[in-house]
């Protein structure tokens, strides 16, 4: 266990020594602020217009609409940012020649994998915490329902874990960080597209595709509904990613 902590600590320090952490965090916060503002003004404008056309129209849940739009958008932004977090995790070790150092220690694979996975998860948590700055504004000026917000954060966390596990696996496949990042990005893009394919398909194909849609499962979370189907999906997704990572690391032993 102390090995996992040691690796986690080293990885966190490494994140904040390289420019990657700062670039990702800055962009993330910037985008979250911009999107929040854009969505908020959009909603306010359209509800103002609506009330002009007829009095007695239903009260509009502005905060609800804003959070749904916001978290939906941010989930797509995450799709693009996570490759940056995971691309170096194992690829850099290979390039530097430190892979053997990590893997030849007793129980090396498991500890290295868990340490790095936890480090990237911690980073994801920092990113999610950063969005609280904008969301808290809703609480200051309105009375948003806290359940969808909590659900959304939980959903984003699980969704992020799945993507991080996939990215971790991909980074074990190559020495080159850029290639690792691009492949992860490509895979994430495909997962995103499956979402739009699923709405166009029909029958059994539609069921399969919509189950695989990584973003689709988020919808319920954002609405405030915590359905175990989705939780299981994300956990399984993350598990598969980690399993593949473990196998990939093991195969390095006999590959060379």
């Amino acid at each position, binding site marked *: 266990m102390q090995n996992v902590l040691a690796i986690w600590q*080293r990885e966190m320090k490494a994140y904040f020594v390289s420019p990657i952490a700062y670039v990702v965090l800055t962009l993330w916060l910037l985008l979250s602020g911009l999107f929040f503002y854009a969505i908020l003004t959009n909603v306010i404008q359209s509800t103002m217009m609506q009330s002009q056309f007829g009095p007695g129209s239903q009260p509009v849940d502005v905060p609800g609409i804003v959070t749904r739009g916001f978290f939906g958008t941010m989930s797509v932004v995450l799709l693009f940012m996570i490759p940056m977090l995971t691309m170096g995790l194992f690829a850099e070790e290979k390039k530097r020649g430190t892979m053997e150092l990590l893997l030849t220690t007793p129980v090396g694979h498991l500890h290295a994998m868990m340490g790095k996975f936890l480090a990237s998860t911690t980073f994801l948590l920092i990113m999610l915490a950063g969005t609280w700055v904008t969301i808290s504004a809703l609480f200051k000026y309105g009375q948003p329902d806290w359940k969808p917000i909590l659900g959304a954060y939980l959903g984003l966390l699980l969704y992020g874990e799945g993507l991080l596990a996939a990215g971790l696996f991909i980074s074990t496949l190559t020495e080159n960080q850029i290639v690792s990042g691009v492949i992860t990005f490509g895979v994430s893009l495909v997962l995103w597209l499956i979402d739009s394919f699923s709405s166009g398909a029909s029958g059994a194909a539609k069921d399969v595709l919509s189950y695989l849609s990584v973003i689709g499962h988020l919808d319920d979370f954002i609405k405030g509904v915590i359905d175990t189907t989705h939780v299981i999906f994300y956990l399984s997704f993350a598990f598969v990613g980690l399993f593949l990572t473990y196998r990939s690391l093991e195969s390095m032993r006999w590959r060379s």
Partner: protein
Amino acid sequence: MPENPPLYPEMTVQSYLHFVAKIKGTPSAQRKTQVEDAMDRCSITDVRDRIIGKLSKGYKQRVGLAQSLLNNPEVLILDEPTIGLDPKQIFEVRSLIKNLAGTHTVILSTHILPEVSMTCNRVVIINDGRLIAIDTPQGLANQQKGAERIALLIEGPREAVRQKLASIPGVMSVQAEAGSDAQPAGFTVECKLNTDLRRDIANAVVTQGWGLLELRGVSMSLEDVFINLVTKEEV
């Protein structure tokens, strides 16, 4: 320790060594002393807070060596530890390796044969993936040399000296360096194995009135041994 030691260039020497000590399973009570000890033995205590990426190759090599000492392994395998170092650093690393004898078994892999004669007790020669010799450096040299060799620097008429030397009993051949008679000339005398003809040769030269400027026994170098063994193998 591989040729390019596994270092994290963004870490400081001290934090790197602590990290390695942790993942190698060193009990936490002993970690600090082991790290300090390794730094001390490799003479890197003065750069403990420097970032590894900014160190010179010699220092990086020493950090790599320090890392390999952590958790007191019984056997150390060092691959080309002095590659790329300047003469001073090469000397320091070699003394370091010699000092490891006694507390660790060291297996050194290198192409620099003088390094082997200098630091190792036993030599293993591998060619084309096959083991072709295991012995002490001296043992190998003794095994391989066909004759005793003596190198001389003599002032005197070349041809006469050559003939006189060749006439000494036990001398198998005499080779003279080319040049004019006015300059002192180098001679290499090959004698039968296990004879020591240095006294006889010295007497012969001096009684003739020639200047004996230098006389020394030449042992076979490890390079010669290596080349002998490897070319023999190819036959």
